[in-house]
C-alpha cells in the first residue's frame, strides 16, 4: 500500500515529519519498505517577489533585480526577461538548483555583475514549451515557499507492507485511523456528498429501481451488492488533484470515471466497479444484475483482454442470467468497460467472500487492487456510503447527473459482538504495567466503542470493534492492539520462572551427534543435499522397485529433476562428487546424515527413515613433502564403517558379499553388506563404474550407506571393563599359505577357535602372492599371534605346546601349509 504523506495529512494531524511517521509505523507494526519523495527535482527552487528592478549597468536589455525568497536577504539576480515588474511574484532557481538538462545554477557574473540565481520560465523548469518570459505567479502567491510545495507536487510516499490481518489499512482512511491511534491525535475525514439527485422515468418521478435490479444467487459469496446509476458523464482527463492522488497511490490515471473509482477505493478500501450502462443488456426496460457462480465451461474476457476459462466455484456478475460482465471482486469484463463513448454508468459497490475471491484470484493467477482488498475482507457496512462518495465525485469531476436512490441488496448483514476485555489479563499476558486509561483511549482512537463496566470487578470493559476490523473478535486481538500501540520494545525482558521441567538432548540425539563426530574424525566432511530426487535416480542405481519402495511425488515440482523425494542418499552425494570433480577438486570425502522418504501404498504419509552415507574419491590429500597419500580404496571406506561401529560399541559386525540384485550400484568383488546379529545395517563398496558414468564421474568412488535407525537400535552405551594385562605376552609369527578362496574371516575363525584360552590377539600383517614362491591361486597370510596367561608368565614350553596345536588344527581345517 502506497501511502501519500500529503494526502494523509489532510485526513489526520501527524506530529513530526515523514521520518517520525516511518519510525512510529515500524514500532507499531506497519513495515515501511520504501520511502519515495516526489518533487525533489524542484529542490532549491522557490517562489519569490521582485523587490527592485533596475537596468543592468553594462547591458541595454538585461535587468538587475533584487528578489525576496526564503533567504534572509533579497538575492541579486541578473535577468534578461522583459515580462515582469517590480512587486511581481516569480519563481527563482537558487544556487544549488538543478534544472532539466542537468543545468546547475551557480553563482555567476553577467557582464561584470554578480548573479545569485535565476528567474525561471516554464520551459526552463520543464513544465511546458512556453518561453515567453519568466513565470509570473498570481499576486496572492506566497513568497519563499518551495516551488514543488506551491504546485502541490511535493510529497513523500511510503511504501507500506500491510499484514494480511489488516484490510482496514489498505485504505487512506484506515491508515489515518491507525495514525490517530499511534499518536493519540484526532482524524478529520470529510467525505464528499452528492449535491443533487435526479429523478428519472417518463413521469420524472422514479429512482434507480426503475433502471436496475439486483439478484444475489449465492449470498454466502456475496453478502451485499449495491448499485447506483449516474448519467451523462463527460469522459475526459481527471482534474489535477485527482490524477495526482491516483498516481501517488500507484495507479495510472486513465479517465475521470475510472480514476474516481480508483481514488475512492484507495481512500476507503472499498473496491468499486463502473459498468458502461449502455453495454449491459436491457430487458423489460431494465438492467438485471445477477450475482451468480460461473456456468460450467463459461468464459469471460477480462479488462486486460485475456480470455479466462471459469470454473463453477467462481463468482461472476452477469447482466441477466447468461452473459458474464465481470469476474466478481477481481476484474471487470471487456464487454462492459468504460470507454470514450460511455454516457451512463452503473456503479457497483459490493462485498464478496474473501476466501472465494482469494481462490479465484489464485486459480486464474490474476491479482488486482480489488482482489487484494476483497481477499482480506472488505467492510460490508460501508458499501452504500462509499457508493455515495463515488457518486458525488462523478458529479464533481465528470459532470454526471446522479440518479436518485440506490439498489441495495444486503442479505447477510454483519453482526458484531462486543468483546469482554480484562485489563488485568492484558497486563498478565504482556508482562507490562499498561494502565486502563491507555487501553480505553487507544481502542477508541482505533474506532472501537469502549464501555467500562462499572459493576464488574477489576475494571472489565466491553469493546465493540469497528466494522472494518474483522481481525478484532477476541480479547487476545485487543491485547495485541494495546501492546503494539503501547510498545513491544518497552516490555521488560524476563526469563520464564519455570518449575518442574528439565531439558537436554536424548540418548539417541547424543548418539546422532557421535556418529557425525566420528565420521569427521575419520576425515569426512559433512554436506547436505536436496531431499528432492530425480525420478531416474533409482534406475541409475539399478535398484529394483521393491528394494526402493514407492516414491513420494510432488504435484507441482519446480523442475522435473526434482519431482519426487529421495529414496536414497547416494544419488545426491554422487552429484556432489561430480560437482567437485567438475570444479577441479579431485579429492572428495563427504558424508551426509539425513532422511529418505519412502511412500506407502494406500497411505497418505510416507516412512521417513534416517540414513548416513559417505563417499570417498581421490586421495585424502595432495602429496606433501613428508607424506604420500595413496588413492582411497574399498578398505578406506570399510575402515570408516568399522570406526563408526566401534564408536557406537556395536560388536560382532560381519561384512559379507551381497547378493548382486541387492547391490546393483556396486562393483562386484568390491562390495560388502554390513551385518550385525543377522540384520543388514547397510553396505560399503565401490560404486559400479556404470553408475558412476550415469552421474558423470570418471574416477573411482568408494561409498557406504548405513541405516541410522539400525545403528541406534544396536548401539551400546557401555561395554564391560577388561583388566589391563600385567604379565608379558609372547608374540609368535605364523604365515599360512592357503587357496585364494579361503577368506580372511574363515582363517581367523579357525585360528581363534584353535588357539584356546592362551591366544589373546590375532593380527594380520601381510598378504603375499607369488606364482613361484607361494604357488598359483594361493596366497600367504602372515599373522602375529599373542599368547598370554593372566596368572603367570608363560614358559616357552607352554607357548610351544599351544602354538603347535594351533598350527596343526588350522592346517588341517584349511588345507593350508606353513610358509617357512
Amino acid at each position: 500500500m502506497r501511502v501519500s504523506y500529503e494526502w494523509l495529512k489532510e485526513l489526520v494531524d501527524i506530529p513530526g515529519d515523514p521520518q517520525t511517521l516511518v519510525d512510529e509505523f515500524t514500532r507499531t507494526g506497519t513495515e515501511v519498505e520504501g520511502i519515495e519523495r516526489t518533487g525533489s527535482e524542484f529542490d532549491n527552487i522557490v517562489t519569490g517577489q521582485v523587490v527592485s528592478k533596475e537596468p543592468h549597468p553594462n547591458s541595454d536589455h538585461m535587468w538587475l533585480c533584487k528578489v525576496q525568497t526564503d533567504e534572509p536577504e533579497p538575492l541579486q539576480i541578473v535577468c534578461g526577461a522583459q515580462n515582469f515588474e517590480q512587486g511581481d511574484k516569480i519563481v527563482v532557481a537558487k544556487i544549488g538548483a538543478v534544472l532539466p538538462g542537468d543545468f546547475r545554477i551557480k553563482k555567476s557574473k553577467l557582464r561584470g555583475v554578480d548573479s545569485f540565481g535565476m528567474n525561471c520560465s516554464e520551459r526552463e523548469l520543464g513544465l511546458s514549451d512556453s518561453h515567453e518570459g519568466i513565470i509570473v505567479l498570481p499576486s496572492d502567491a506566497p513568497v519563499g515557499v518551495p516551488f514543488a510545495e506551491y504546485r502541490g507536487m511535493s510529497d513523500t510516499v511510503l511504501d507500506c507492507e500491510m499484514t494480511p490481518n489488516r484490510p482496514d489499512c489498505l485504505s487512506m482512511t484506515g491508515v489515518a485511523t491507525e495514525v490517530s491511534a499511534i499518536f493519540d491525535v484526532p482524524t478529520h475525514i470529510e467525505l464528499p456528498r452528492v449535491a443533487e439527485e435526479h429523478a428519472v422515468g417518463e413521469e420524472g418521478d422514479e429512482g434507480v429501481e426503475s433502471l436496475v435490479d439486483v439478484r444475489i444467487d449465492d449470498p454466502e459469496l456475496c453478502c451485499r451488492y449495491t448499485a447506483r446509476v449516474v448519467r451523462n458523464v463527460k469522459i475526459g482527463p481527471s482534474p489535477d488533484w485527482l490524477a495526482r492522488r491516483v498516481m501517488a497511490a500507484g495507479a495510472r490515471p486513465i479517465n475521470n470515471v475510472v480514476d474516481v473509482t480508483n481514488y475512492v477505493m484507495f481512500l476507503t478500501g472499498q473496491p468499486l466497479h463502473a459498468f458502461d450502462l449502455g453495454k449491459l443488456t436491457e430487458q423489460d426496460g431494465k438492467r438485471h444484475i445477477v450475482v451468480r457462480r460461473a456456468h460450467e465451461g463459461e468464459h469471460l474476457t477480462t479488462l486486460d483482454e485475456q480470455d479466462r476459462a471459469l470454473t463453477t466455484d467462481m463468482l461472476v456478475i452477469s447482466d441477466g442470467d447468461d452473459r458474464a460482465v465481470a469476474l466478481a471482486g477481481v476484474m471487470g469484463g471487456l464487454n462492459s468497460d468504460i470507454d470514450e463513448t460511455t454516457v451512463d454508468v452503473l456503479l457497483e459497490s459490493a462485498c464478496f467472500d474473501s476466501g472465494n475471491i482469494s481462490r479465484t484470484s489464485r486459480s486464474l493467477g490474476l491479482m488486482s487492487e480489488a482482489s487484494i482488498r476483497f481477499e482480506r475482507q472488505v467492510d460490508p457496512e460501508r458499501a452504500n456510503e462509499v457508493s455515495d462518495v463515488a457518486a458525488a465525485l462523478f458529479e464533481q469531476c465528470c459532470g454526471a447527473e446522479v440518479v436518485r436512490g440506490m439498489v441495495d441488496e444486503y442479505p447477510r448483514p454483519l453482526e458484531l459482538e462486543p468483546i469482554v476485555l480484562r485489563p488485568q489479563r492484558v497486563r498478565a499476558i504482556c508482562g507490562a504495567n499498561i494502565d486502563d486509561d491507555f487501553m480505553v483511549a487507544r481502542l477508541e482512537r482505533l474506532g472501537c466503542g469502549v464501555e467500562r463496566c462499572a459493576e464488574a470487578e477489576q475494571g472489565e470493559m466491553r469493546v465493540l470493534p469497528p466494522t472494518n476490523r474483522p481481525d478484532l473478535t477476541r480479547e487476545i486481538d485487543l491485547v495485541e492492539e494495546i501492546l503494539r500501540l503501547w510498545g513491544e520494545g518497552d516490555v521488560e525482558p524476563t526469563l520464564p520462572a519455570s518449575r518442574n521441567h528439565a531439558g537436554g538432548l536424548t540418548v539417541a540425539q547424543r548418539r546422532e551427534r557421535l556418529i557425525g563426530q566420528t565420521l569427521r574424525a575419520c576425515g569426512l566432511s559433512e554436506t547436505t543435499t536436496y531431499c528432492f530426487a530425480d525420478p531416474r535416480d533409482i534406475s541409475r542405481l539399478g535398484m529394483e522397485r521393491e528394494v526402493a519402495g514407492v516414491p513420494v511425488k510432488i504435484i507441482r515440482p519446480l523442475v522435473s529433476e526434482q519431482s519426487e523425494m529421495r529414496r536414497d542418499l547416494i544419488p545426491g552425494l554422487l552429484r556432489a562428487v561430480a560437482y567437485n570433480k567438475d570444479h577441479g577438486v579431485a579429492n572428495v570425502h563427504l558424508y551426509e546424515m539425513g532422511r529418505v522418504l519412502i511412500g506407502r501404498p494406500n497411505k497418505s504419509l510416507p516412512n521417513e527413515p534416517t540414513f548416513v552415507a559417505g563417499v570417498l574419491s581421490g586421495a585424502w590429500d595432495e602429496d606433501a613433502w613428508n607424506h604420500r597419500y595413496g588413492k582411497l580404496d574399498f578398505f578406506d571406506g570399510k575402515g570408516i564403517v568399522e570406526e563408526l561401529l566401534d564408536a557406537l560399541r556395536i560388536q560382532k559386525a560381519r561384512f559379507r558379499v551381497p547378493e548382486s540384485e541387492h547391490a546393483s550400484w556396486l562393483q562386484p568383488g568390491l562390495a560388502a553388506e554390513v551385518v550385525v546379529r543377522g540384520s543388514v545395517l547397510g553396505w560399503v563398496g565401490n560404486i559400479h563404474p556404470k553408475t558412476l558414468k550415469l552421474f558423470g564421474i570418471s574416477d573411482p568412488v568408494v561409498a557406504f550407506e548405513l541405516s541410522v535407525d539400525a545403528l541406534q537400535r544396536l548401539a551400546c552405551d557401555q561395554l564391560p571393563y577388561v583388566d589391563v594385562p600385567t604379565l608379558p605376552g609372547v608374540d609368535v609369527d605364523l604365515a599360512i599359505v592357503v587357496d585364494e578362496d579361503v577368506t580372511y574371516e574363515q582363517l581367523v575363525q579357525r585360528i581363534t577357535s584353535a588357539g584356546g584360552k592362551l591366544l589373546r590377539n590375532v593380527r594380520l600383517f601381510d598378504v603375499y602372492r607369488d606364482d613361484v614362491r607361494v604357488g598359483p591361486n594361493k596366497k600367504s597370510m602372515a599373522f602375529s599371534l599373542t599368547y598370554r596367561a593372566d596368572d603367570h608368565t608363560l614358559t616357552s614350553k607352554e607357548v610351544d605346546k599351544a602354538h603347535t596345536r594351533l598350527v596343526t588344527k588350522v592346517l588341517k581345517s584349511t588345507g593350508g601349509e606353513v610358509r617357512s
Partner: protein
Amino acid sequence: MAMKEELEAIQEQVVMNLQAAKTMDSLEQLRVKVLGKKGSLTSIMRMMGKIPPEERPAMGKLANTVRANVDNAIKQRREDLTKQALHARMQAEAADVTLPGRRFTHGTQHLINQIREEIEDIFCGLGYIVADGPYVETTYYNFTALNAPENHPSRSAKDSFYIEDNAPEGKPPLMLGDSDVLLRTQTSGMQVHYMEENKPPIYMICPGTVFRPDTPDANHLPQFTQVEGLVVDEGITFGDLKGTLDYFCREIFGKDRATRYRPHFFPFTEPSCEVDVSCGVCHGKGCRFCKNVGWLEILGCGMVDPNVFQYVGIDPEKYTGFAFGIGVERVAALRYDLPDLRMLMEGDMRFLRQF
C-alpha cells in the same frame, strides 16, 4: 727402564693418545691396550712381585695412582665423546622448523548443522528439549491447527509443495495443484504434534528442514532449515518471550548486539512480532550490509494464539505460552555474509572445509 719410568711413560702415552681417540671404538681399543688383560699397565702390575720388597710400597702406590689417573682420563674422554656424539646426532637431526607439519585429515561439520547444534545447545542450557517431526505433513498440522484460515494464501500450491496422496480416500490432485498432504513449509506443525502428546510445562525446540517452492537463487532455497521454539506454562508473559530471545540473540551473535521487536502478524501467535538484531558491521548506524537500516531481521515470534491451544485441548485461561521460528540459513548468511545460499547445497569441498 725402571718401573717408575715405565709407569710414568704409560700415563703420558695414554694422555697423549686419548686426544687421538675420536670414537668410542678407538677409545675402547686404547683402554684395552692399557688396562686390558694383556694391557701395558696390567702387565706392569703383574710384575710387581718381582721388584724388591722395599720398593714395593712406593711402587705399588705409584702404580695405583697411575691406574686411577688413566682410568679417570678414559672415563672423562668417554663422557666427552658421548656428549659430542649426542651433539652431532642432534645437529644431524635438526630440521627447518618452518616446514609444514604432517597434518591429520579430519572433516568439518556443515555450516548449517554447526549453527543448528549451537542453537540446540543454547536452548538445552535454558532447559529445553529438542523434538523432531515429519517432513511430510497433513494440511491439518501445517495450517489448520495453526489457525491458518481455509483460504489463506500460504496454503496455495504456489507457496507449498503438495504431494500426491496415496490414500484411497485422499483428494485427487486438482487444477489448483494441492492435496491434503504436503512437505512441511514450516516447523511450526511440531507445536501441534508436541502439545498433543505432552502436557505443560513445555519447553521445546524443533530444528528441521522445511520446503517452499522458491527457485534457488542467491537468497532463496526451496529447502532450508528452521528452528521452532515453543514454551507453554503458567504465567508466561510477552516479557518472557523477550528475555528468552534477547538471551538467544546475544549468545548466537555476540553480547554487544541489541534487539528490536516489531509487531507483525502470524496466524498462530498473537501478539506477534519480528525480531531484528542490530547490524554487526555498523552497530545500528546503517551501512551497506544492513541496507542502511541498522537492523537485521532474524526471526518471527509471538504469544501462542488461544485458538491453537484449543485445537490441542490446552486451557488458554490457565496456560499461556510463546513460540518462535528461527531461520538457520539466515543466521549463517548474517554471520558470514554469504554471497549465495546455493553454496550450502552444492557439497563443494572448498566451501565446506572453511567452517
